[in-house]
């Protein structure tokens, strides 16, 4: 796990009330498997009458990269967004089943979704810098949001997060420039730095390189490889070669079902399911 900054964030409770996690006992807490950072059990997401994903049981291993692959509309982004309760913000979305993070069910009524999202950060398809904010303010936005004003702490976190995102050397002399002044690839690394600033345990990435050129894509892929020593990463990608290059485990989704999951090496050399083979060899999707 990432070395905790002394921001106070790491001491914040997962729970809405300080004792709630204990009082709910096994319903909300299971002994955590040290190999697993997260796990979903029978996770189903529905939008009204439409089912996005069905009964997905899938482990997410600590300090590994899990790639979610599958054709458009197969449910991989729906699944990803369920991992940090983003569907709470989607009108009509109903989530059932369990999502466990370090032995806690994040959908339990005692859990605080804001803290959950801080523990499980997200990077989107397109870079999302706050356009009117400086590079510096973009990075520390999450900390300021929770009231941290200690200048030295903010400076330290900013540098640490930018270094983690492999962006510090490129921007260290212009931290006050607008975030929007950076190139697309730099903006995406800035988005990653902002997610890392709040010290997450898991980073969710939804096609983070789909709008980038090959060189920027390469930088992000190298970054993912480095970051996994510190955080667990779940990435949605349409690029089969990218999934093969950067992930340790791959899960193939099709029409809302999890068709197959396993070590990436096995999925890309001898998949068990014919649908997986057909998809990764480009026969459909």
């Amino acid at each position: 796990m990432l070395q905790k900054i002394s921001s106070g964030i790491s001491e914040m409770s997962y729970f809405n009330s300080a004792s709630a996690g204990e009082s709910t006992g096994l319903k909300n807490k299971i002994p955590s498997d040290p190999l697993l950072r997260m796990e979903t059990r029978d996770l189903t997401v529905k939008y009204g009458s439409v089912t996005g994903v069905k009964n997905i049981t899938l482990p997410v291993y600590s300090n590994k990269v899990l790639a979610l692959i599958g054709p458009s509309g197969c449910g991989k982004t729906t699944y990803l967004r369920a991992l940090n309760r983003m569907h709470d913000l989607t009108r009509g979305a109903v989530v059932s089943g369990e999502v466990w993070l370090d032995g806690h069910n994040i959908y339990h009524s005692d859990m605080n979704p804001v803290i959950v999202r801080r523990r499980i950060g997200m990077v989107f398809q397109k870079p999302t810098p706050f356009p009117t904010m400086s590079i510096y303010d973009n990075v520390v936005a999450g900390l300021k949001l929770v009231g941290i004003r200690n200048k030295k702490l903010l400076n330290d976190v900013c540098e640490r997060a930018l270094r983690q995102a492999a962006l510090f050397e490129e921007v260290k002399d212009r931290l006050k420039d607008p975030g929007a002044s950076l190139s697309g690839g730099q903006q995406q690394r800035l988005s990653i730095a902002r997610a890392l600033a709040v010290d997450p345990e898991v980073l969710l990435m939804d096609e983070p390189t789909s709008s980038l050129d090959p060189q920027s894509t390469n930088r992000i892929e190298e970054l993912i490889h480095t970051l996994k020593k510190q955080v667990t990463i779940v990435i949605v990608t349409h690029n089969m070669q990218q999934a093969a290059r950067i992930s340790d485990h791959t899960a193939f989704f099709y029409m809302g079902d999890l068709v197959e999951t396993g070590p990436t090496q096995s999925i890309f050399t001898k998949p068990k399911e014919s649908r997986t083979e057909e998809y990764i060899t480009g026969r459909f999707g």
Partner: protein
Amino acid sequence: MRSAFQEHLRELESELFNMGDMVITSINRSVSALKEQKLELAKQIRRDDSRINDKRWQIEEQCIHLIATQQPVATQLREIIAVLSIITDLERMGDYAAGIAKIVIKMGEEPPVKPLIDIPRMAEIATAMIKRSLDAYAGRDAENARLISADDDKVDELYHQLLRELISIMIENPRIITRCTYLMWTAHNLERIGDRVTNICERIIFLVTGELVENLDKPENQT
């Protein structure tokens, strides 16, 4: 895009079978040159071996091109890896045939020290194994690939039988040791061809199942 890739894979397979035919022809001709002491044919076989080598490099280049441009995965990846391995075995078999041709040239007009019975039989079994292995490749038939490699035992048996016979002849008449070694080397080359077919069968099993099988020539791995 993908249909073009499938087309390239079919071409690759076709080239592999062409190379297999070239090797079978070369082995048959080398044994024929030995039986009938055809020196000119033996020289031609040695010259033609370069065509087999060229074919191997041409196929290897095709494989490299497909890996670089198509980024194959799963069965398609295993197919290309299998082809890369099989052409190496076929190329070596071509070398063994050329080696037999070289022995024919060395023997010159001297007749063999014994009637040639086991050696043509070995060649017959070995070439049939090559043909059957390529058929198993075409049919993606892992089960048959296991059965074919069992025939390697027959080649080995004939080889050891011939060795024993030649050693007896050498003990009885040391003056013809050199001539005996010609047949020993010929038989050795054919025995190695059988082993190489076993390698091909292992690659067919890899292609079909994804499992890397070793020592298929051992009986316990043939079921």
